[in-house]
């Protein structure tokens, strides 16, 4: 306890609670999923995936923003924690094996293609329950191959990766079939978002030291599923390897994401947004990062940036006047002179849902609170007019005794909220003119907030 206070009921409060936390790897996996969804890096339209839960195939559509992947429900009490999972041993028809594989055109299905590793080769279909291979030849000298395998269980799938690592270590180099050059194989320390992963490269090293013919192979395992994703390029060397591994990782992200279907505790894909839910209208991922040059202090003389905007310590009948939840980023500025304090704050959220919620909550709270109890005097609150063309809300308050008062204008554009606040010597009659001034500022800044909308600024 920081203070020397004789009253200390917190003294033996536990520093930590015993909780069953998710493994850190699972937290990261969900975080990666959130990041991808929010930034919409890849167009996912058209993907159709199948969900399987405890061995029961359930076909569900995936690939639009209204869908989400949630952890599967907990097993029923009749299923013990030690029960062997029901592994999916047949690749669902709609599993997106080739998603992200080709920029243009369609990959074609073919026979398994393996990389030589001295006395053995990788991958092998021996022992798998199901396997499929796709090829894609792009323009020029590049190509890609993707092998997706389901093993009888996670142990056999894991063994296949263990065997791969041992084979790589046992075969650092070998001669090409014609003997004119060396095939060099090496492990690359590049982890993928999966339960296990192995990344390795094979390059051709000529007599004169020229390195070419780079195969980059990324292997990811989730449960009993293994994805072997590879690309070929004519250039070799460390720089080419770094580029190729990053490219492969990005291209296979969605497929790896869906591999949670084959985990011991499989995910399921579900329609998360009932049509009747009005939040679906605004629950879309948008850009949440605030541009460095956002002109929050435009026209504000003597403004100084603050770490966190501090609105007045005022509750609206129990609801804080401005304490947003689910914030991703916030910037604030303020200006003071003899008569007034002006504050501006820009806050971004993961989606447009949270700020819409904040506005509704605050609007309802103010409407339900015509009078605020104060420490020395009460305050009268008044709803004010703001910019009609925007999702905006304005209100003011003045003390019942003495001087003071303030006006808020809170405006949502996409996944961001702009808060303008003026505090000073006000009367009931000066509230609306003050709100009108804020409206001009809001209308001036709102176009800059297009970056937080789903459509962007185009």
């Amino acid at each position: 306890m920081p203070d020397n206070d004789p009253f200390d009921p917190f003294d033996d409060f536990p520093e930590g609670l015993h909780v069953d936390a998710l493994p850190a790897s699972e937290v990261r996996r969900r975080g990666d999923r959130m990041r991808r969804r929010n930034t919409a890096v890849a167009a996912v339209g058209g993907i159709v995936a199948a969900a399987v839960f405890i061995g029961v195939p359930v076909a569900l559509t995936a690939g639009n923003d209204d869908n989400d992947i949630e952890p599967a429900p907990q097993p029923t009490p009749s299923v013990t924690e030690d029960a062997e999972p029901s592994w999916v041993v047949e690749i669902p028809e709609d599993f997106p094996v080739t998603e992200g594989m080709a920029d243009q055109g369609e990959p074609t299905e073919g026979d398994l293609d393996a990389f030589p590793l001295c006395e053995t080769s990788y991958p092998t279909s021996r022992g798998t329950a199901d396997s499929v291979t796709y090829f894609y030849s792009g323009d020029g000298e590049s190509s890609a191959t993707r092998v997706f395998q389901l093993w009888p269980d996670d142990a056999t799938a894991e063994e296949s990766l263990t065997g791969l690592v041992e084979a790589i270590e046992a075969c650092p180099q070998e001669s090409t079939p014609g003997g004119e050059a060396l095939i060099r194989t090496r492990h690359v320390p590049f982890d993928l978002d999966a339960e296990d992963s192995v990344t390795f490269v094979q390059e051709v090293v000529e007599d004169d030291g020229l390195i070419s013919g780079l195969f980059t192979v990324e292997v990811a395992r989730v449960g009993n599923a293994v994805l072997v994703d590879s690309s070929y390029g004519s250039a070799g060397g460390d720089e080419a390897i770094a580029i190729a591994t990053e490219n492969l990782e990005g291209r296979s992200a969605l497929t790896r994401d869906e591999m949670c279907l084959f985990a011991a505790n499989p995910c399921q894909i579900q329609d998360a947004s009932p049509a009747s839910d009005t939040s679906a209208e605004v629950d879309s991922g948008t850009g949440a990062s605030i541009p460095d040059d956002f002109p929050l202090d435009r026209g504000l003389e003597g403004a100084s940036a603050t770490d966190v905007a501090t609105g007045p310590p005022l509750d609206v009948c129990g609801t804080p006047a401005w304490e947003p939840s689910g914030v991703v980023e916030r910037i604030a500025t303020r200006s003071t002179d003899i008569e007034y304090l002006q504050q501006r704050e820009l806050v971004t959220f993961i989606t447009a849902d949270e700020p819409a919620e904040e506005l509704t909550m605050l609007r309802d709270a103010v409407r339900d609170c015509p009078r605020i109890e104060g420490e020395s005097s009460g305050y009268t609150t008044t709803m004010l007019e703001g910019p009609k063309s925007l999702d905006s809300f304005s209100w003011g308050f003045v003390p019942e005794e003495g001087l003071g008062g303030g006006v808020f204008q809170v405006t949502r554009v996409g996944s961001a909220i702009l808060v303008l606040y003026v505090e000073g010597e006000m009367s009931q009659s000066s509230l609306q003119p003050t709100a009108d001034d804020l409206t001009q500022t809001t209308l001036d800044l709102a176009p800059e907030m297009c970056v937080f909308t789903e459509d962007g600024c185009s």
Partner: protein
Amino acid sequence: MDERQFDEFYTASFSRLTAQVYAMIGNRDEAQECVQEAFVRAWAHRRKLDQAEHPEAWVRTTAYRLAVSRWRRTMRGRRPADRALSPATEAAAPSESHVALVEALKQLPESQRQALVLHHIADLPVHEVARETGAPEGTVKARLSRGRAALALLLADGPADPGASHA
């Protein structure tokens, strides 16, 4: 923050943050859910986390806001409860004294409760409580003073009022 650093951060702070958020909101299961979700967001926004001066405060603030936001949604009944808001399955608290403390905290105004927990359970000095809550230091001191006084009365009076507010 790379994977190893994040995993260490997560492992080291998860139970501690859960205890703090539990004290703030009074529901252990909900606290765990929200801290878990906050860590998911932390990894999703790890570049911001790298820039944050106090990553643990970032997670704690996010978890607390998630809890408040969920509670508001539930109370307003605007949307069906999600999985995390299913009927309470609150686990037993660590001990009777902790239950009494948490129940008493639940009866305090949100701002006082948050200040007390951050100062007395998270061991943050007043200026850091002010930074984390966005309130002036003087306001934080007032909240602590009033909160302590109210808490002393509540704990002296015995069992908490079952109609106490949540957040």
